[in-house]
């Protein structure tokens, strides 16, 4: 009896131990059958008779207690009793709890946050749990039960159809092309959402509008830079790839007063219509758009000659100005000029500009005078090349040589001009010599007689014409009778070379014609 009274749990009588604080009101012999069933140990029905909220969730097949591994368990398998007041009847460890079995798996950002961030009174929708302390029950799986509906119920409450749990923005699960009536095509797919879905105020709160946007035409979102000049059907001219890229398939420029042809087809619209395409350019004259590349050369009395006279729309460089028209304009293109490209005469290489007017008609305006001082005013009056040359060919010379005082007789008439006039200078280059060219034979020909027939008056100048003519080298003008030794007798029949032998003098080998000693023994032995 002493021991009986000593026992601290006398009042507990046959209880195997104290109940937890949660069940402390059930202590006492009379309360045993509130939990225990006679002959049947413990049954869930007794627990659920009090824990109606759990019972309700199980009946609705919701929550942790309805999960596969828990549903068919006995309550006492997890929630034991009679282990003392401080016993953790709910052995819940937030760090090890597999939240997925509650029917709401924690993924994405949900897996990073603390339990209490969601399990708060203010988020509990079920009134049964609202006032309970430290409960993990009563939360709805709907996003809006914890998160503010920033869309203010304009998009329904199925948040997960657009958002995932990783990040609220952007709505990663939302596919504008399949989920919205307005498909994002072209440049629309690159535009930030806020550009179309602007922030506004609704019910006094900041609100981004996602539904109710007008998109029958472009102007609800895009400014009509044409100020309704072209109506509301923007896609008639524009496409969704770029505002600046015209919809050539639907916009037909040929229906305008200025059909696009040739190179105009490849030109950007903004080149003519300005950056905002608001410009309505004049198109009567080419210079309404194009710069006058000729620097006013074709402007006469402030009137610009129509470009079409020379150019077409295919290419500026392709000219319509024909040779016939060129020949009408004053400088006739003849001979080799017909084969020369325009730029040879009209493109000034230094200025790198084309010039067509007043470029001069004289040969030297284009050609270099290669003769310099060799041709005097007498032979090239006023620098006129045509006194000798013709346009057919530079080398075709039309010149009367007789005016030079050196008539072209005999063979001279048939040799080319270059034979006499083209000579090598000291630098080894061929130059033309005209006035500086002597009329002496030895200027062109070699003196094979080595000065034997030099003029007595003018030393060093041979008097070839005393013996030779112009048709060949035969000494047709030579008469032996007129020499100091006329040929007589047998001398007439003797070969010339019997008397005029080859000699070597000063290293030169030649036939000696000028003999001084006429003694017989000089020739005869």
């Amino acid at each position, binding site marked *: 009896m002493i021991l009986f009274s000593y026992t601290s749990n006398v009042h507990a*009588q046959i209880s195997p131990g104290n109940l937890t604080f949660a069940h402390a009101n059930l202590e006492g012999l009379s309360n045993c059958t509130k939990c225990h069933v006679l002959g*049947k140990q413990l049954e869930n029905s007794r627990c659920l008779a009090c824990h109606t909220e759990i019972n309700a969730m199980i009946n609705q097949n919701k929550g942790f207690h309805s999960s596969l591994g828990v549903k068919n368990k006995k309550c006492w398998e997890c929630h034991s009793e009679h282990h003392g007041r401080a016993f953790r009847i709910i052995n819940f460890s937030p760090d090890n709890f597999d939240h997925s079995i509650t029917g709401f798996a924690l993924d994405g950002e949900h897996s990073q946050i603390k339990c209490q961030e969601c399990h708060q009174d203010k988020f509990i929708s079920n009134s049964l749990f609202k006032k309970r302390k430290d409960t993990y029950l009563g939360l709805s799986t709907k996003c809006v039960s914890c998160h503010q509906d920033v869309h203010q119920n304009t998009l329904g409450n199925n948040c997960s159809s657009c958002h995932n749990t990783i990040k609220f923005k952007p709505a990663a699960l939302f596919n504008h092309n399949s989920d919205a009536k307005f498909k994002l095509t072209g440049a629309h797919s690159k535009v930030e959402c806020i550009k179309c879905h602007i922030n506004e105020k609704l019910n006094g709160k900041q609100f981004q509008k996602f539904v109710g946007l007008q998109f029958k035409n472009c102007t609800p979102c895009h400014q009509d830079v044409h100020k309704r000049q072209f109506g509301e059907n923007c896609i008639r001219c524009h496409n969704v790839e770029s505002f600046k890229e015209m919809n050539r398939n639907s916009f037909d420029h040929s229906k305008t007063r200025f059909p696009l042809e040739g190179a105009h087809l490849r030109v950007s619209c903004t080149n003519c219509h300005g950056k905002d395409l608001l410009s309505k350019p004049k198109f009567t004259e080419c210079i309404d758009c194009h710069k006058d590349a000729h620097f006013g050369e074709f402007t006469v009395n402030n009137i610009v000659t129509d470009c079409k006279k020379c150019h077409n729309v295919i290419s500026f460089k392709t000219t319509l100005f024909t040779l016939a028209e060129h020949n009408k304009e004053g400088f006739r293109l003849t001979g080799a000029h017909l084969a020369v490209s325009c730029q040879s005469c009209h493109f000034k290489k230094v200025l790198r500009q084309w010039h067509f007017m007043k470029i001069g008609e004289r040969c030297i305006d284009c050609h270099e005078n290669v003769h310099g001082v060799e041709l005097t005013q007498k032979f090239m009056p006023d620098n006129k090349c045509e006194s000798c040359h013709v346009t057919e060919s530079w080398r075709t010379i039309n010149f009367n040589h007789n005016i030079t005082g050196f008539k072209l007789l005999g063979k001279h008439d048939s040799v080319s001009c270059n034979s006499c006039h083209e000579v090598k200078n000291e630098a080894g280059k061929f130059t033309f010599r005209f006035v500086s060219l002597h009329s002496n034979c030895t200027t062109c020909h070699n003196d094979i007689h080595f000065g034997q027939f030099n003029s007595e008056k003018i030393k060093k100048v041979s008097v070839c014409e005393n013996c030779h003519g112009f048709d060949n080298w035969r000494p047709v003008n030579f008469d032996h009778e007129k020499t100091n030794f006329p040929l007589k007798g047998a001398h007439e029949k003797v070969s010339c070379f019997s008397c005029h032998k080859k000699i070597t003098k000063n290293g030169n080998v030649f036939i000696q014609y000028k003999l001084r000693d006429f003694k017989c023994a000089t020739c005869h032995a």
Partner: protein
Amino acid sequence: MNKKLHTIYIASFFIVGISSTLLLVINGYQYYNTPLLTRFFNPQDILLKPSGFIGQGLGVLGSLMMILGVAIYMIRKRVRYFLHFGYLKNWLELHIFLCTLGPIFVLFHTAFKFGGLVAVSFWSMTAVVLSGIVGRFLYVQIPHTIQGQIIGMDELNAQNENLSHQLKEVYNLPTRIFEEIEQISSLKRHNSPKLKIGIAFLIKDFFGTKSVIHNLKHELALAEVPKSKRKSIAKIVKTKLIFSRRIGLLKTMQKFFRYWHVVHLPFAILMFVIMFIHIAVTVAFGYRWIF
């Protein structure tokens, strides 16, 4: 039951008792060491908790052992029909075995958690076991026949005389030593002390006897008594000393033993009453173990 069979009989008790206890300790050491507040979450709880398969089984087995241990001894001792059914000494040994191992099983059944009304039963059981150990010691102090009957003073004196005769005549113990032994084992030294003094004397004499035997062996060696005789002489002297002590303390011990019964029996009854209540409640709530 001859001596060899008795040794096997006792050894089997020790082996079963000790191995069962060790097995329970080793198997449940980690669980039983777990604090009560967290024990439920231990994986072994489902088996070792008081209502678990092993836990409750130990309770059932332990209770049956105690019931059996008490019943057979009581029946053998008190029912006339069984008065000559085996030696009472052997039944007592079986009683001690069953009523020692039974409580050990019950102890593990409780999983060392003591609370509620059943705790009274447990502590009663503890008191019964502890008093049983004391009782076993007292029982030995009162000379009994092998049938358990108390030997009278005259017969004890006669047996004591017989031992003295053996020492003097058979072993030719040197006179000096013999007289010294006679003096030490004189019945005068006891003089039927009171209970408290008797227990103190008992303890003192228990250790004093060992000292005397040690010194005796030394003296016998000095007296050049053959070694083979020395051991027998020491055994007889030890028996003689214990005899003289028991004779001297017989009245005191008999008185003490009566008091002991007052403790041992009521606690046993209390234990069984509460135990049956506990069993009844358990069964009523459906905890029937394998039944």
